């Protein structure tokens, strides 16, 4: 028997109040942790998917669209650029690597991207099985593509025109799977990679039958990595001013995007904090009520030799037990809630990779909750400090 034990028994003896307090508190904790985790995951996804790309060069248009289309593969491209022009700017001495990409087809909603062997290195992606694309009409698959579509090496697929799944405009040239990449948790996981020739072949075949000369060949964009950050200063401006192409900085554009979306996160966080305040009040009420209702019990404990401080400790423990179980339940709710949310939102093009909450994030929220217990308890113990044992005992009838 100790003070913890008495607190525990006290809590057990009022299950409805306890349930209510724990429920509300755990809800707000789950919401707080959840928004934090989603925010972190979102930031992390963006950060991850930038890979090693410093600048994207593509057709003129919205720079954000260009980044979304060519880096995150979420939007349609702004247009095409001349392959010859692209090769020309690739020779700039500031550039460490320039990876051309060309896309416009999909297989069951997964984009088919024509590129070079350098593309996987931007995301540090390595082959899990098979070999690189050596010839036209060979493809390697991102890990999620292989998983979701259950494709193996040697399988063949027919690409469809456009970036959305459809069965009407299907090309009649077969693509053969020759390799599968290891999972990277990055955008490359949901892409189908081939070489530029394959893409050109597919489209030449559709339109005019003669092979285009290099002057006529087009790509969608060029992903550029500089040798030093110095390139960022002059290169994009030169492209934007002197050519009919544009250079977009993924980091900058995505940061802007993040600024827009953070309003939503802020609102949810605000609601979570509001619920936290409400749960703080609920906790206070339930503790205060306990102190008031059990005035006689507390007075008896004083006659047993308990000091005021020990009674305060008892109330604090009660608050702590409630909040600690709320924290655990909140965590559980979060895990289950996120799983459900992801399950229902799952679409092929969406990436549902959650970043685990850092210890720091959890600690921050835990501290907040601790402060909340301390505040509720300090108000709730007021009657104890003011307690007149003699008066309570003589009013026992």
């Amino acid at each position: 028997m100790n003070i913890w034990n008495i607190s525990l028994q006290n809590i057990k003896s009022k299950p409805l109040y306890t349930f209510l307090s724990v429920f509300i508190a755990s809800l707000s904790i789950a919401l707080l942790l959840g928004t934090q985790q989603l925010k972190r995951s979102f930031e992390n996804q963006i950060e991850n998917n930038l890979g090693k790309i410093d600048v994207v060069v593509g057709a003129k248009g919205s720079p954000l669209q260009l980044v979304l289309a060519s880096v995150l593969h979420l939007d349609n491209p702004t247009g095409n650029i001349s392959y010859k022009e692209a090769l020309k700017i690739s020779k700039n001495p500031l550039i460490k690597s320039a990876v051309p990409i060309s896309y416009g087809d999909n297989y069951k909603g997964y984009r088919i991207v024509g590129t070079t062997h350098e593309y996987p290195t931007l995301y540090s992606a390595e082959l899990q099985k098979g070999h690189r694309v050596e010839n036209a009409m060979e493809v390697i698959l991102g890990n999620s593509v292989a998983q979701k579509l259950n494709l193996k090496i040697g399988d063949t697929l027919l690409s469809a025109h456009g970036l959305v799944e459809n069965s009407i405009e299907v090309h009649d040239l077969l693509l053969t799977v020759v390799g599968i990449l290891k999972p990277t948790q990055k955008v490359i996981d949901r892409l189908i990679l081939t070489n530029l020739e394959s893409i050109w072949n597919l489209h030449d075949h559709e339109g005019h039958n003669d092979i285009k000369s290099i002057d006529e060949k087009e790509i969608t964009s060029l992903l550029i990595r500089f040798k030093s950050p110095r390139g960022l200063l002059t290169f994009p401006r030169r492209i934007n001013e002197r050519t009919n192409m544009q250079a977009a900085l993924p980091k900058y554009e995505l940061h802007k995007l993040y600024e827009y979306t953070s309003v939503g996160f802020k609102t949810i966080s605000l609601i979570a904090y509001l619920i936290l305040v409400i749960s703080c009040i609920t906790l206070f009420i339930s503790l205060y009520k306990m102190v008031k209702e059990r005035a006689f019990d507390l007075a008896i404990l004083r006659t047993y030799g308990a000091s005021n401080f020990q009674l305060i400790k008892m109330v604090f423990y009660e608050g702590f037990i409630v909040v600690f179980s709320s924290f655990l339940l909140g965590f559980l709710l979060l895990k289950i809630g996120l799983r459900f949310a992801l399950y229902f939102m799952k679409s092929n093009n969406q990436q549902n990779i959650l970043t685990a909450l850092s210890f720091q994030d959890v600690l921050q929220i835990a501290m907040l909750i601790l402060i909340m217990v301390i505040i509720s308890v300090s108000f709730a113990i007021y009657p104890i400090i003011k307690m007149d044992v003699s008066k309570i005992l003589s009013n026992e009838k």
Partner: protein
Amino acid sequence: MIQTENLTYQYKKGTAIFSFPNITLEKGENLLILGASGIGKTTLLHLLAGLLKPVTGKIYINEVALNSLKNNKLDTFRGENIGLVFQKKHAIQSLNVFDNLKARLLFSNALVTDKKIEIVLAQLGLSELKRNKVSELSEGQLQRLGIALSVIHNPQVILADEPTSSLDDKNCKIVIKLLKNQAKQTNANLIVITHDHRIKACFQNSITL
């Protein structure tokens, strides 16, 4: 042993001043304090328990002056040396019978084994009920639990406030007998305050306020 000198108490400035006769009890002696309602019986009991501070006068329990003890020391002294029996409510509602007795011992340094608890429960006919909630006990059983709680830590003084007023004649006799027995076992002073004249015959020493 217990000794008081010129005790007076006043609840608020301007209200009536209670003054109490001096009491001297040797070890093991019992005392019945009779008086009508409102005469200050409970006030005297709470003064003796150190729950109220007298305006004037001194209280000695086993030669320790209660006035000289401050805050936590007074709480601990009370927890170790005094056992209180109340009229109706006796125990903590959320705990069962056995845990109530454990809780009684929590704040004192008294070394009491679980076996001792079992013995006291058996003496008071509560063995069967030790895992029951307090709310499941009858009034007579509650009163017996109250006695158990007041003696379990081997106190120097047992103070009972109207322990019999809500009991019928039969239970009234039993309770007084149990209280006296328990006091005798630990050689404690038993002081009972009451307006219940039924129990006057049970005590050799009595004063009327």
